[in-house]
């Protein structure tokens, strides 16, 4: 369980590989810090690889929305990569898939920025 994140820069895009749970107690606050840190470092093209995320609660969904707004407000973009079935379901139920740009291929996602 719990949450783990690693970051790497690929041709100007900051990519986060996220693993575990994004919930009130676990990944949610860390994710917020991660995004702020990236913005502070001048990165505003952010791609979150969610393939390792198997659980998001409403707080985690709220955190994704908050990150989306914050990044956009700084002239950047947040995109999502590789959602599994559970996460896809969550974005469908909440209609959040309508606001996020979602990709299945890393190269394609990077190129889309």
């Amino acid at each position, binding site marked *: 369980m719990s949450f783990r994140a690693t970051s790497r820069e690929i041709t100007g895009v900051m990519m986060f590989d996220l693993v575990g749970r994004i*919930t*009130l107690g676990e990944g949610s606050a860390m994710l917020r810090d991660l995004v702020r840190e990236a913005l502070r470092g001048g990165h505003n093209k952010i791609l979150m690889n969610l393939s390792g995320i198997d659980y998001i*609660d*409403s707080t985690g969904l*709220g955190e994704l*929305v*908050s990150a989306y707004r914050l990044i956009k407000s700084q002239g950047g973009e947040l995109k999502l990569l590789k959602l599994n079935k*559970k996460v896809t379901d969550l974005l469908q139920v*909440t209609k959040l898939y309508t606001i996020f740009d979602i990709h299945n291929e890393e190269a394609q996602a990077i190129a889309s920025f």
Partner: protein
Amino acid sequence: MSSKPQRIEIVLETLLESITLAEEVGVRVAAAAGFDEDDQYKIGLAVHEAVMNAFQYGNEQQREKKICVIFELHHEKLVIHVTDQGTGFRLDDVPDPREDENMLVDSGRGVLLMKAFMDEFDVQVGHRGGAEVVMTKHCRTQNT
């Protein structure tokens, strides 16, 4: 399973850890009731959301206040009650986060997830005045 519902009651303090604990018991009870893995996850998430709201809004993170979770395992359905010691709320007052004007708001998706993942969902006034969330999931297949 006999016709009288099996009843499991958990009383938790208003602590962050209580959210995951209740969720895990929920998954365990759902598994014992014969729900498949997908439904176990959905039931667990619904319990997680209900207890998280009791923690945040109902009991306002005041540790001494109690969160009570009751699982009633009927023959053909699982009924879950989550009660807090807050002042309650009305379902009609909760905005729909899928409306355009709410789409970019951080909060407001807990009730929606509970409604989507359970078959029935209602909020009542608990016998001590707090919110009592009552949610039901029907068993798809009958088993023992």
